[in-house]
């Protein structure tokens, strides 16, 4: 009995959380008359799949998705390279000034992107990187959070292997590629899911530095489907469903990795 009550409670909560999106999915299949009806229509009488075609026609959504993917992959790969190299040095090397440098890295977490966005915009403009993938991606290719996350993981690898390998004359770089990286796949997966998702969802930076349809990312391009004369809610919602699919799939597949990433910040090693 108690179990059933628990399930009922869970189901109600789940419905409330999902309601906005489920309603959006319903509207995306409605006819235009149904979207304007009052009281609102919860379940469309027939599935108007054509709304999806219209959404794709009204805005180059596939181009936007491609751009978002390109930028997210660039940033993810970039962060994996820079963060793992830095984390390796912090976890395994002994050198003077290590503490100072590590603090310097962490201090970047206290600087909100909005506080540096004006000069950053000017830098990108003077590099002639407005409306380019490198302009969208390069500023985000280093991350203190990612370095911290990987360092925490690297530190759990037994240091004896490192010392033994060094004794045998294994170079630091070789040890990094043959031992550290392969042993750290879970942590790298966590960083990848986290970075990909947060880059895909970026809003302010792409808004500032892109102004051509061919370079816009999903988040900015969606505005082309904003409800307006000529476009009705069903088209807008179809567009939202299309662009949300990649992140929904990523969340379902990568939830475990994501949880590890999100909680890494809450525990101090």
């Amino acid at each position: 009995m108690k179990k059933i009550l628990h399930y009922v409670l869970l189901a109600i909560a789940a419905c409330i959380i999902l309601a906005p999106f489920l309603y959006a999915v319903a509207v995306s299949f409605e006819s235009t008359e149904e979207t304007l009806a009052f009281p609102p229509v919860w379940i469309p009488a027939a599935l108007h799949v054509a709304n999806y075609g219209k959404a794709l026609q009204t805005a180059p959504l596939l181009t936007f998705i491609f751009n978002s993917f390109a930028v997210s992959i660039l940033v993810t790969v970039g962060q994996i390279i820079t963060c793992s190299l830095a984390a390796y040095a912090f976890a395994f090397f002994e050198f003077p000034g290590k503490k100072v440098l590590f603090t310097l890295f962490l201090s970047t977490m206290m600087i909100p992107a909005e506080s540096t966005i004006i000069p950053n915009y000017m830098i990108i403009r003077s590099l002639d990187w407005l409306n380019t993938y490198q302009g969208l991606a390069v500023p985000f290719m280093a991350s203190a959070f990612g370095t911290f996350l990987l360092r925490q993981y690297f530190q759990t690898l037994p240091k004896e292997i490192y010392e033994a390998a060094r004794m045998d004359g294994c170079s630091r770089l070789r040890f990094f590629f043959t031992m550290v990286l392969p042993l750290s796949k879970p942590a790298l997966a966590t960083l990848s899911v986290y970075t990909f998702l947060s880059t895909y969802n970026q809003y302010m930076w792409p808004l500032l530095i892109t102004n051509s349809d061919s370079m816009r990312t999903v988040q900015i391009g969606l505005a082309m489907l904003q409800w307006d004369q000529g476009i009705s809610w069903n088209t807008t919602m179809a567009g939202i469903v299309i662009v949300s699919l990649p992140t929904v799939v990523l969340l379902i597949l990568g939830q475990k990795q994501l949880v590890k990433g999100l909680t890494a910040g809450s525990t101090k090693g």
Partner: protein
Amino acid sequence: MIPKQKKTVYNTRQALLYLLPSLLLFIVFTFYPLIRSIKLSLFNTNLMGQETVFVGLHRYAEMFASPQFFHSLLVTFLFTLYTVIPGILIALFLAYIVNCQLRYISVFRTIFAFPLSIAVAGASMIFMMLFNPGAGVFTYLLQLLHLSPVFWLSDPGWALPSIAMIAIWRSVGFNTLVLLSGLQSIPEQIYESARIDGSVSWRQFKDITLPLLSPTLFFVFIVSVINALQTFGEINILTQGGPMNETNVIVYSIYREAFFNTNFSYASAEAIVLFVIILLLTVFEFYFLEKRVFYR
């Protein structure tokens, strides 16, 4: 044998080589821009954003004398209040009910995390439809309850709470995931020994769960506050700071002043104020976490 000093120099050089990619990016895109922001706030700027005349702290004086700036700060504070407290309470409830060993529980965990995957633009437009004063779902719900209609986004009194509702929905996924993992890290034996003492559910929650969860709660609180302070997308898509500046939070004001009014200098002064607020919050967090290590 390599002399010790020579070895140290070699080690340092090696380490720097590994740190170089990150360091370079941080210098170019974080540290230099921060210094440049400070410099911009101390100068008059032209339309291209170049510094012209040094004016010292004049911009800050102007800012602190302007009622609009304080209004912006107040709106930012209220928005933080509206989103953080309900956001954490809802997530705590969800994390608590999903922290159990029932069948299919992982399905519910994924559902509760779901809002994480809907980005700001999509979420804002879905809510724009729900908020539609003519035929929207919320208007319908009010009618069912026999309440008078509300012009959610265009009513100065309702715009900020409406934007806050979107932010709460978007934050629930993250908060629930983190709080759930905090709950899971509380050892089962503690509950078992409490049960022997005859501790009832609510007291068990209040006396055992909450204290042990407090570090996680604190982390979620700081992250939520920082996220709330940085909210931009919902406002840009739905209200553009209006109506009557009632949603003109600091971050939106920075954007507006810099990229519409080309007042780079004033915007930079605001950006530095935002930086100081977030710096203090983060230092506070690190200090707290540092202390926490002792009682673990």
